[in-house]
Each structure stands twice: as C-alpha cells, then as structure tokens.
C-alpha cells in the first residue's frame, strides 16, 4: 500500500472534478423516438391520438390524429328536418349538450325571423349556464386527475350530479335534453324547480370555493401548471382559440356579452374573467371563476324570470325560408356556431358546424414543440377538449 502524498491527492481531486464537469457538459445524444399516445389512453379522454417525436424528454414535433369518432353530422344534417337536427347536435359536446342546441336554433330562428318569447329566452339562458356548470365542473376534476390528484375528480362527479338532476328535472334528459325548439322551448319549468336550482347553485359555489383551495392552492398543481403551455394572445386568435382558453391569455372577449344573439345575458349583472398569463394555470383559474360566475348568472335569471308564453307562433311543419345565417354562442368549450344554408325546404341545404374544440386543439402542434413529456398531459388537459366536439 502506497501512501498518497498531499499534492498527489490534490491532483487526483482535480482530475475527478474535471471528469465530472466534462460529463455535465457533454450533450447527451439520444436517438429520436416516436411516442404514440392513444387512441385509447387515459390522458386523452376520448379517442384523440397523439404522435409525438421525442428527443430525450423533449417533444420535437407532436401531431394529434383524430377522426376515430367522426360521425359526419354535417352530411347527416342535410337529410334531417330542422327539429330533428337538434338530436344530432346534442352529441357534439356531450357534457354540455343543451348549449349545443342553442346556436343552431338561433340560426334557424334568424332565417325564419322568429324570436323566442322572453320567458323562453331566459329559461334557455338558465339551462345554457347549467350546461356550462355541469361541463366545466368535470373539467375542474379531470385536469387535477391528469396531474395525479385523484380526489377532485370524485368530488366533481359527485357535485355535477346535482346539476344534471336539475337539467333532467327540467328537460327529461341528463345528457341529451333535446329541449330547444325553433321559436321557444318544449316545456315550461316544473314546479319547485326554481328553489331547487337555487339550492344547487349554493352547493356549486361551495364546490368552487373548495376547489380553489384544494387544487389552485396546491403547491404541486401550481408547480406543474405555472408557465406551462403559454399561448400569446395574437397566436391564439390566429389559431381560432376561443372561450376560456383565449380569456386566459388576457383577451377580454366573451360572446355572451359581446355577441348579439337573443339570450338574456344582457339582463343580468356579471363579469367576464380574464387572466394575463396564458399558461395552463391561467386556463384552469379562468374556468373556475367562470363556473362561480355562472352560478350567479343562474341565480339572477331565476329571480327575474319573466312570465308569459314559452313558444312563439311557428307553423307546425317548419319550412325555413331560403337564405344563409350564422349564429354563434359562448359554449362551455368556446365559440360554437352553425352556418346554416337553407333553400326553403324542410331540411337544411348545408350546415357547417364550427365547434370550439377543433380550433382549440389545432394549436397543439405549435404549442407542444419543445415541451417535456409530462407537460403534454398538462397542456392537453388545460386546453380542454371533448372528442365529440373535435370530430363532430
């Protein structure tokens, strides 16, 4: 055994640090890898397939592949009469079905120059907001579960049920109400519904408060969402991002306030929430505030519900005069619109469905460039899409 002298030891230590530095400085070269997520994958909630080319942990290129659930509603609508089309479009955004029906009916009403009576407009708006609450509630739980927190999703499912019960009590359908008619609504509200709904709104406000602490106040959640997937406002707009996604980028635009459709939003006092950051955290935050705001809208609408008929005078056999109309509303996922071309027949000549998720998700190839693999999930979850709304 040879003793190591002091200067020798120093020399060895120097060599060791040099080697360690060299290891750190060397670019670790990896072969490119293609990661296929989906079509059936828990993180894609629906059959959205994502093909990502990776360099190590970083995404070089990501491409969503859809069409696994394409049902051809635009073609099918051409052979359905106007009242039958609502059955189809219920199934576009299946978590907030009633909200799908409204813009189509509004477009048809524009062509027919019919306006629903005030009571129908108010009840429409109430049910519209209930759909929004039911839809966004699930998002609030779902995004948390994708980031690894299981509890919120159970709470979301539990509390969403109260809202669905109210929708069912009024319309007869939990998921597919098919309740909106050209010129008004199918039925009036059942007895006692208004008080029950107000109680549910109270519960939903508690739910929002709870989530604000449980999820938004969670350190891990913040660490995984802050600064992840930042969408600048101008890029978002050029990709057609709408709804909470673009409001989370600081764009103060909400079709409920800024649109000119015949709904009762201008009769109540409410606020459009925006967030300047444009990251995943902001998108969650905006949606949470919107859910709470929606409960206030519902409360006010129910307080001021006008009396009167719920159907305007429309012929029993609906023939829509020739023309073209576009109507769009602020759906839970963003702007949903229908471009209806009529030739004066029982069936529409052409229906173009502008669904929010299709445009919202079209930004992903741009947004996912250069992010790390776990952030793919965060970004997809925070952009929030419903497959039926992409594939139509």
């Amino acid at each position, binding site marked *: 055994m040879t003793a190591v002298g002091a200067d020798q030891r120093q020399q060895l230590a120097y060599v060791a640090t040099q080697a360690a530095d060299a290891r750190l400085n060397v670019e670790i070269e990896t072969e490119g890898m293609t990661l296929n997520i989906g079509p059936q994958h828990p993180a894609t909630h629906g059959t959205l397939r994502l093909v990502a080319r990776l360099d190590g942990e970083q995404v070089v290129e990501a491409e969503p592949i*859809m*069409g696994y659930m*394409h049902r051809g509603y*635009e*073609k099918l609508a*051409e*052979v359905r*009469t106007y009242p*039958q089309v609502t059955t189809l479009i219920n199934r576009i955004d299946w978590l907030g079905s009633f909200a799908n029906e409204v813009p189509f009916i509004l477009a048809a009403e*524009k062509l027919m120059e019919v306006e629903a009576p*005030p009571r129908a*407009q*108010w009840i429409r708006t109430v049910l519209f907001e209930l759909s929004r609450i039911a839809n966004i509630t699930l998002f609030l739980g779902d995004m948390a579960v994708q980031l690894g927190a299981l509890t919120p999703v159970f709470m979301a499912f539990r509390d969403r049920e109260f809202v669905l019960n109210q929708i069912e009590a009024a319309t007869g359908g939990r998921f597919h109400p098919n309740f909106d008619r050209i010129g008004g609504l199918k039925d009036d509200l059942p007895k006692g519904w208004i008080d029950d709904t107000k109680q549910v709104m109270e519960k939903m406000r508690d739910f929002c408060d709870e989530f604000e602490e449980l999820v938004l106040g969670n350190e891990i959640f913040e660490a995984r969402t802050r600064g992840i997937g930042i969408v600048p406002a*101008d*890029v978002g*707009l*050029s*990709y*057609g991002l*709408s709804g909470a996604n673009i409001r989370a980028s600081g*764009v103060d*635009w909400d079709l409920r306030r*800024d*649109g*000119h459709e*015949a709904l*009762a939003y*201008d*009769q*109540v*006092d409410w606020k459009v929430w925006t967030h300047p950051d444009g990251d995943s955290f902001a998108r969650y935050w905006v949606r949470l505030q919107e859910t709470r705001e929606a409960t206030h809208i519902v409360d*006010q609408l129910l307080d*001021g519900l*006008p*009396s*009167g008929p719920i159907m305007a005078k429309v*012929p*029993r*056999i609906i*023939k829509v005069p*020739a023309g*073209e*109309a*576009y109507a*769009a509303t602020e759906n839970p996922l963003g*702007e949903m*619109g229908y*471009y209806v*071309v009529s*030739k004066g*027949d*029982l*069936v529409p000549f*052409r229906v*173009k469905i*502008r669904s929010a998720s*299709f*445009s919202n998700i*079209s930004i992903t190839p*741009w947004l996912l460039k250069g992010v790390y693999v776990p952030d793919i999930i965060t970004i997809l979850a925070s952009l929030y899409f419903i497959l039926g709304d992409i594939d139509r």
Partner: protein
Amino acid sequence: MTQLSLTDTDTSAEAEPQPDERREAWAARLADSLGDGYAEHHIIGGSDLWVRVARDSWTDAATAARDLLGCQFFDWLSAIDWLPSPFGRDMDAQEDNPEPKAADPMEQGHAGGETRFQMVMRLYSITEHMGLTIKADLPDGDLSIDTLIGVYPGADWHEREAWEMFGIHFNNHPDLRNIYLPGEFEGNPLRKDFPLLARRVKPWPGIVDVELFPGEEDS
C-alpha cells in the same frame, strides 16, 4: 341587476342602423383594398356581412380583413356545394351518380356566385365585435385556391377538412392529407352527388311528411 318585464324586451331590436353603417364601411374598405378582385357584398341589417371576392384575391382578402379591419380571430373555413342534391330529400338513391335533376336550377346564396363550389371563410374582430363571411367562386375545372396558412395558421386543419370533404386543392399547403377519414377513403363525402351510403343499406324512416290538421294550411 335589471328586472325584465314583458314590455321591456321589444326595445332590444331598435339600435340597429348604426352597425349597418359599420358594415358598409367594412365592405367599402375591402373593396378599396382589393380593387378588381372584389365582386360584391350583401348586408343584412344589424346582423351580418357577406363579401364575395375573386379566387386570386382570396389571401389578399384575408390579409386585408386582418390588417385593415382588425379581424384577428380566425373563425372557420369551409366550402359549399351548390349543386341541388341529385338524390332528393330521401337520399335513398338506387344509382351511383345520377345526373342532377334539370328542374332544380343551381342558386347561390348571399353575395351571389357563378360556380358550383364556393369557398367560405368567417373572420371576426374581437374589438369591434363584428364578423364577416368571405366567399370565393371556384371554377369547376380547377378546384384549387391558395392556402391561408400564411395569414392565419389556424386555417391548416380547416383546409385539410375542406380538401377531403369537397376535394378542393389548397396551393402551397404543406401537409394536405386526410384529417377525419381513413387514408384509403375514396370520394368527397360532403359533395352533393356523394350518396349517404348508410341510407342505401337501410332506408331511414325519419323524414315523414306530416299530415295537415283539418283546416290547416301548409305554410
């Protein structure tokens, strides 16, 4: 919160003339900027604006709408096939490609048009809270038009959809392939002469002629 009574609602439709002037102004500015490429426009009071441009001015129109009118928001893009459906209402066609019925003339919608296929895009200004629909005719022999990706990157997927559904080619589109349909799919489903195949297999009883009540008149 304002309470609404039945008498309040009828006033809502009154403040309409002003937006019309704004739409007229939009149309005039587009016409100025496009010159010969501008065909015509159609305005529905307080509701909507349609503009038809020449095919060569398609991207110029989008650029002008974005830069001059402030339409930053790309809403959607699609096409319309104006051919009257050769299958009629029931779609239970027995033959593959029947000739269009001579009795049904082809009629284009707002802002006119001359050809069977028309491109449609919708743009929106989030500051003015006003949208416009721009159309362009595509000659039958040459179904192609310039891509809008350079102006609005969001047009990418919409153009892929229009390509597979209508068979319209987008010049300079980097990645024109199927978005919804499987790769080996033949035909363009949203064309009017493409039969709804499900109806061939099983006629659907959904379209029923409602019988009139005694004394009721057909509207």
